[in-house]
């Protein structure tokens, strides 16, 4: 019996050679347990070594293999080709980012925004080794734990129509990571971050589409984080206007 195969249609683009991106179709063996990343690896190893894509862990932890698969942002290592068989699978780079080459996108904009929101614990004074670790209650941990699951895969940026329309917008992952540190009982950097967050390019740029939370492969809820930051920003605004003598 002939071996079953499946077609993988990949967007190709080499800015040094191609005037514009184009689709190339590859036929690969159909293996039931293969994910899209396996199919891409087969193409690179057996058919066309020039195919360029990011990947690393193959277990939805590193966040490297985000692609637009059949028009929706997914991790290549978490999307089975059996869900498409016998139809072909179309693989494109993530939307809303410039293409570096083939499926690799330029992430510079995200990296800059990510640095702006200070995604680390800020304290005036850190405990010495002798003073020991910081203690945190379960309730304190629950406030931010889900946001620590973000793997910076950028699927949420690809899904977010606002980021596509307005590149100044800080976008879902940066905002939810900022919220993660704002909600951490060990952190004292909320005021610094709110300068960035409570701006038009910050949370007020979000138009409540919610596509980010739907796209997240780690079940983080960036849309929820953004709405919670809006509550915090509104609370700061009220305190500033109604109690100008008080502290935020």
């Amino acid at each position, binding site marked *: 019996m002939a071996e079953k195969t499946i077609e993988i249609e990949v967007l190709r683009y080499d800015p040094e050679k191609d005037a514009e991106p184009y689709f190339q179709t590859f036929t690969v063996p159909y293996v039931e347990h293969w994910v899209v990343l396996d199919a891409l690896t087969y193409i690179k190893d057996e058919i066309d070594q020039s195919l360029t894509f990011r990947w690393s862990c193959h277990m939805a932890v590193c966040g490297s293999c985000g692609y637009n698969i059949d028009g929706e942002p997914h991790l290549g290592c978490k999307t089975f080709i059996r869900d498409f068989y016998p139809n072909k699978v179309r693989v494109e780079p993530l939307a809303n980012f410039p293409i570096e080459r083939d499926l690799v996108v330029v992430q510079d904009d995200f990296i800059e925004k990510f640095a702006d929101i200070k995604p680390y614990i800020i304290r005036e004074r850190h405990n010495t080794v002798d003073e020991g670790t910081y203690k945190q209650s379960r309730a304190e941990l629950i406030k931010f734990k889900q946001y620590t699951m973000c793997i910076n895969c950028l699927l949420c940026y690809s899904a977010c*129509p*606002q980021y596509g*329309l*307005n590149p100044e917008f800080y976008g879902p992952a940066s905002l939810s990571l900022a919220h993660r540190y704002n909600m951490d009982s060990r952190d004292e950097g909320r005021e610094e971050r709110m300068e960035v967050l*409570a*701006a*038009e390019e910050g949370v*007020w740029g979000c*138009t*409540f*589409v919610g596509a980010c939370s739907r796209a997240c492969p780690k079940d983080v809820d960036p849309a929820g984080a953004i709405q919670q930051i*809006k*509550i915090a*920003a*509104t609370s*700061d*605004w*009220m305190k500033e206007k109604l109690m100008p003598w008080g502290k935020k």
Partner: protein
Amino acid sequence: MKHLLLKLEPIIWLLFGQGILLGTLLLTGWVLVVGVLAPLGITPLLSFSDAHELAATLIGRVVLAALIALPLWKGAHHLRHVFIDLGGADRDATVAPLLYLIALAGSVAGVLAVIRL
């Protein structure tokens, strides 16, 4: 205008948020009871004078004013963002004030009507 809109964003968002809460919870129940269940005789129908008396209490007036005004702000804010999502960000400085003025006018009219009950 853009600067003013940004300055007012927290208060507009607060009205929007309360509008969602009331619009989805209370207003839906209100329409269900007053518009469907009561006319079908499933729930008791208040006479006009009883309904008027209930609405004219302080709590009745506050509830009615909130039910009229806040969903208008919810609608205005949502429409503004739908407009932005459809690529209208360039005209936001015109569209947003227009929508908020409609919400404001509706709110003022609603509150005045409630006061005159």
